[in-house]
């Protein structure tokens, strides 16, 4: 079986984020990492491979030269090979916006790559933790005309069918889809660490580099249909409020504030 796992490199959750001219100031970002949902996707794919050794996992990513680090890590975790679709973000003045293609444009590129590589099953994360829009996987499924399961926690594959477990509010749901299909992952058991053996072998695994142009994506499929008009940092945290008085009064006041001001109870 052939599985494609689409991964995106995003600013590390610990990297400092600042906003200038409605864009994230990429020059301040000192560390990138695989989007955690994509790591879940890879872990789910690896669990299928753990059970069926003839499974082949190909990582696919779209991004600048730095994505090679993430690809190396994915290969060290156990993927078999990788395709990097080269894309240096456009420069806007001094700022380099990491994401200058909108979700549909990205989905168009990735869908073209998927067709070129071939697949039985495609994984993406439910969303990238940078833009948090969550539409690339879903749009890709639509473009490829595939059955889609969003927000999977685990997958079992047998005889051309994938049985998917997903979380629903307060419970669990089991779905079945016939392959080929596209699954977006929202969780998995903790993604594995690369093994030392995997690390030492990662560089010998094939990594192809493609240009977007070589995928024959029409120019209008790359045009952004959505324009960002504003991007703001969340407001700074307000100072805490100290409740004074007798414990009884404090509790009553606390309950009142939780109910009337915070509206959480």
């Amino acid at each position, binding site marked *: 079986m052939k599985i494609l796992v689409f991964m995106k490199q995003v600013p590390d959750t610990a990297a400092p984020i600042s906003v200038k001219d409605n864009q994230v100031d990429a020059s301040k970002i000192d560390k990138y990492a695989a989007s955690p949902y994509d790591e879940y996707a890879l872990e789910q794919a690896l669990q299928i491979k753990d059970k069926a050794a003839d499974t082949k996992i190909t990582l696919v990513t779209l991004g600048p030269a730095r994505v090679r*680090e993430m690809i190396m890590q994915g290969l060290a975790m156990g993927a078999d090979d990788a395709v990097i679709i080269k894309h240096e973000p456009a420069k806007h003045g001094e700022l380099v916006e990491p994401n200058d293609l909108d979700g549909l444009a990205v989905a168009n590129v990735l869908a073209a790559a998927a067709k070129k590589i071939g697949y039985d099953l495609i994984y993406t994360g439910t969303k990238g933790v940078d833009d948090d829009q969550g539409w690339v996987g879903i749009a890709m499924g639509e473009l490829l005309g595939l059955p889609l399961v969003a927000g999977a926690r685990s997958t079992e594959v047998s005889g051309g069918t994938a049985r998917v477990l997903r979380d629903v509010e307060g419970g669990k749901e089991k779905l079945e889809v016939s392959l080929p299909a596209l699954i977006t992952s929202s969780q998995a058991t903790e993604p594995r660490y690369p093994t*030392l053996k995997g*690390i030492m072998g990662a560089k010998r695994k094939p990594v192809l580099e493609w240009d977007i142009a070589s995928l024959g994506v029409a120019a209008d499929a790359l045009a952004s249909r959505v324009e960002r008009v504003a991007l703001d940092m969340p407001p700074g945290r307000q100072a805490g409020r100290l409740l004074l008085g007798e414990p009884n009064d404090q509790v009553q006041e606390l309950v009142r504030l939780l109910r009337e001001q915070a509206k959480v109870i």
Partner: protein
Amino acid sequence: MNFTLSAEQKLFKQTVHEYSAAELKTRAADVDHSGAFNWVAVRKMGPLGLLGLTTPEEYGGAGVSAFEAALAIEQLGWGCGSTALSVAAHNSLACAPIALFGTHAQKEAFLRPLASGAGRLGALALTEPGAGSDLAGGVKTTAVPEGDSWIIDGSKMWTTNASVADLMVVLVRTEPGSGTHTLSLIVVPTSAPGVTIAPPEKKMGLRGSPTHAVSLSDVRVPLENLIGVRGNGLQQTLSVLDGGRIGIGALCVGLAQAAFDETLSYAKQRHTFGKAISQHQAIQHMLADMATEIEAARLMVYEAAYLKDEGKPFTQMAAMAKLFASQVSERVCYNAIQIHGGYGYSANFPVERIYRDQRLMAIGEGTSEILRMVIARQVLGV
């Protein structure tokens, strides 16, 4: 010397760093408070190669260089001093003598299970109530051959890992007198009848790394458990300790780096007299010195590891690296607490624990005084 990391070394370092951040750092305070060994984390070390770092691949180890092992131990020390010390001792004190001096059969029997990470850890028992720095003159534990067994009697002190280990390499006197060729190293399973492991010592720091007094009373092990050459135990021990010192140096660098990282973010966020304390020149000078000394210590550790990997003499450099790195971790942690002010003295802030943890590094695997003796002998050529 070129310390540019290859792509694999970078990924290895990053993987161990992430592992350490997720599995060790998050539980370091708990481990310190409870004294419980962090088995949850150690169980995940096998596939990462961390339990057989320099053990050859043919015996199930990772077979990494001393340099790569130092990279890994620094990252473990950065996460949790206790767990890092136990793992460093397992690798460079318990696995190393078997890897260096053991026969093929001994490596198959003892080293392979240790390196696989499937079982428990290893320990090295040198120190005794009356023998620490002076092993040659002080070791009283004896091993006497009888039939096809050694019969071992005596007491050991300060044995790191004894209660979490499957086996101990024990320094014993096999020959009469107290000459330089009267000691030997023998492998003793911790489950052997006659081995009694006392409750863990109550320590200033490193409380998640169990240290034990061990008594050996009429313990019988097969004659084949003697490692290397009978009577060469002291020489074998000293060369094992040379390697171990690189690991302790790396651990010091990791501890110091952790204290520095904590301090840097604290200094940016704590305000006095209308500005962040990191804006006060006195604090900046401390931070600058800390960063400088950490880098110097790290390079000395790298150099010692490099010499070892090149097969060159490294006794002096390893002693220098451990001596200096333990001084650096002391000074860095001292200033880390100073910059934290009162909060640095609180058990709720990590620098308090790291300060206690690093204090051992000037004592274990050769006190600073003994290291100066080693270095002086080398520079004087005596």
